[in-house]
């Protein structure tokens, strides 16, 4: 008998049925049922009503412990009082103004003081804005054409970052993308030679946190070797720290791996949900970026800058990377033990702050999908095939409850599959 009753999602479905009439696919992107990979959709909430700390409530009033954190932005907890106070104070002063607010300068100075490889900061709204600027800057700086990507890459959804078989993408859009495998320096060398050296740079996430597969962390030795390779070839090394930024190391994930990237992209955890992103880089890249025509209507809005300053300062005070490592380890150790009690082999991979889960009892992932769905429909919000995110509002009691729900869900799936006992 399940200790945690299953949620109902009647109002969510009502809203979704309205949404599908006026919004393409109802909820597009990773927050929606298609790209979010909700299997089956009946177990998931579509829309939220409110959020606080590490919890959100859906429109049916169901409460969730949320380890997706809006896919990253929620780093201190929803409605963090310090960040919200800073944002509201700035809102009263001005937000989207003809002359940018001075808080933009303060925000850039704060980033330069925080990020080890940063001598400057350029602001935008989304991660894609910064990865796109980084690739443009690499080409402008080197006057070379090709870009290297590491297999399983995700650097946003702009045309150049998609794949040739995606709807609306032309072969020409991605003709200069060269994909090389992770952790293989010889492959980098071979690819470089195959391009006759016409390579502007390498854009990469700090480690292989792709979907549908166990995440593979990198080593300092690997990144130091890649840094050396890029230096020797005159390639720009771009760290896409959009997902991992501020969760591994407040000084940047390149610092975590003992190197300095030429350019580093931030978004999600930058302002605890206030909409902004930043490209940071070394002094040697500043004049190149100065010469690029690139801006947007809301990119210099002041409220997110104020939120970012408060967010970063609070993360420093709390030492959130250490906190996330400890909490993520405690949580996933609990999940693994609960899985084992019910005969499931739960594989935990990636960094504890961004843990990735996979039940390895079958190679189709169907058992894993069943378990995740039973967790979600009992109030523990996980994703089937995406890394998760820790936030600073998580308490020991939250972790305890999350493990209890996870165990309950394992029990439900175990009961449904007597064949697993052999």
């Amino acid at each position, binding site marked *: 008998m399940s200790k945690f009753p299953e949620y109902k999602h009647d109002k969510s479905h009502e809203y*979704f*049925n309205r949404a*599908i009439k006026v919004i*393409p*696919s*109802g*909820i*597009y992107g990773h927050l*929606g*049922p*298609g*790209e979010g*990979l909700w*299997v*089956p*959709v*009946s177990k998931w909430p*579509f829309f939220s009503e409110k959020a606080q700390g590490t919890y959100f409530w859906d429109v049916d009033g169901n409460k969730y412990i949320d380890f997706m954190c809006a896919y990253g932005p929620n780093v201190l907890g929803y409605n963090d009082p310090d960040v919200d106070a800073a944002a509201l104070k700035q809102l009263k002063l001005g937000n989207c103004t003809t002359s940018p607010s001075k808080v933009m300068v303060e925000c850039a100075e704060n980033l330069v003081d925080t990020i080890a490889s940063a001598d400057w900061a350029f602001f935008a709204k989304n991660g894609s804005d910064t990865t796109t600027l980084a690739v443009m800057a690499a080409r402008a700086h080197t006057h070379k054409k090709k870009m290297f990507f590491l297999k399983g890459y995700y650097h946003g959804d702009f045309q150049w970052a998609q*794949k*040739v*078989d*995606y*709807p609306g993408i032309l*072969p020409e859009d991605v003709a200069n993308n060269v994909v090389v495998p992770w952790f293989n320096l010889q492959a980098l060398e071979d690819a470089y030679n195959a391009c006759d050296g016409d390579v502007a740079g390498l854009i990469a996430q700090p480690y292989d946190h792709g*979907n*549908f597969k166990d995440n593979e962390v990198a080593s300092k030795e690997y990144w130091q070797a890649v840094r050396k390779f890029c230096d020797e070839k005159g390639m720009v090394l771009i760290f896409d720290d959009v997902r991992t930024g501020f969760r591994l190391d407040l000084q940047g994930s390149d610092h975590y791996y003992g190197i300095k990237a030429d350019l580093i992209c931030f978004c999600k955890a930058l302002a605890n949900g206030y909409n902004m992103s930043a490209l940071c880089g070394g002094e040697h890249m500043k004049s190149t970026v100065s010469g690029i025509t690139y801006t947007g209507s809301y990119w210099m809005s002041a409220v997110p800058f104020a939120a970012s300053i408060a967010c970063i300062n609070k993360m420093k005070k709390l030492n959130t990377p250490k906190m996330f490592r400890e909490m993520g380890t405690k949580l996933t150790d609990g999940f693994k033990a609960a899985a084992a009690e019910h005969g499931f082999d739960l594989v935990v991979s990636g960094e504890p702050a961004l843990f990735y889960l996979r039940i390895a009892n079958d*190679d*189709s*992932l*169907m058992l894993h*999908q069943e378990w995740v769905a039973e967790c979600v429909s009992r109030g523990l919000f996980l994703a*089937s*095939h995406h890394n998760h995110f820790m936030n600073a509002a998580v308490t020991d009691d939250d972790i305890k409850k999350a493990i209890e729900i996870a165990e309950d869900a394992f029990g439900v799936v175990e009961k449904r599959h007597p064949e697993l006992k052999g």
Partner: protein
Amino acid sequence: MTDSRTMAYVNLYAVLGTLENLCALDTKAKEILYELKKPVSICFDVKGGPTATIKFTCKGCRMEDGKQPHDILIPFSSCEKFNGMIDGTVTPIPVKGFTKIGFLLKTFVALTDRLTELLRPSEENLKDPAFFELSTVLTFYTIAVALAQIGNQDAVGRASASYMLDGDIAFLIKDGPAATLRVKDHRLLAIKKAPEKPRAIMQFDSLQLANDLFNGKVNAMECIGLGTVEIRGMLSMVDNMNRILDRVALYLA
């Protein structure tokens, strides 16, 4: 953008290959074949493209890959010429089997005309529920085989296949036809029955929905949200299959 070589593979294996299902499911096709006294085999041999042999008996037909024992041989000097035959702009000229020319002109043409009627249905015909069901089922089989051909031949389709893991994808219409898309080393094979142990599943919840999807009236992403398209298992395989599915519409347009 389509290429004529991939189109030839789609036309031969997916379109003409659906004659197998037509002869098994359609009363009119069965009546056409009923008069066949002896088995007849036709080999379509496309230079620079596919080769397959279709064996007809009074009970049905079966396509086999490659040049098998045959009564009639129809060579094509190019993929474009073969595609022209399917479009009706090129008249096929057999080089072997002149004594069976009657089968070619009468029985084979009658069957392909019937197939065309069902795969390119008029709005009027689709109002008949039985016709609608048969048309949708045959379209389903055509699409299933076209998926494999496009994944193996088309440049963009091959890119999608290059991301696919080994295993069987169940491609299904609930309470209706089923197919397997088998992936091995990024090569695809369509089998016109459900897999025993699928690694991934994509199921449409009705013939009507499948028909609407095939005709571009609705999008799979919308249907996933509504729960009318069920996906499970190794979803990266389904995702990439869905990308190839997008290209099927181009080739079967």
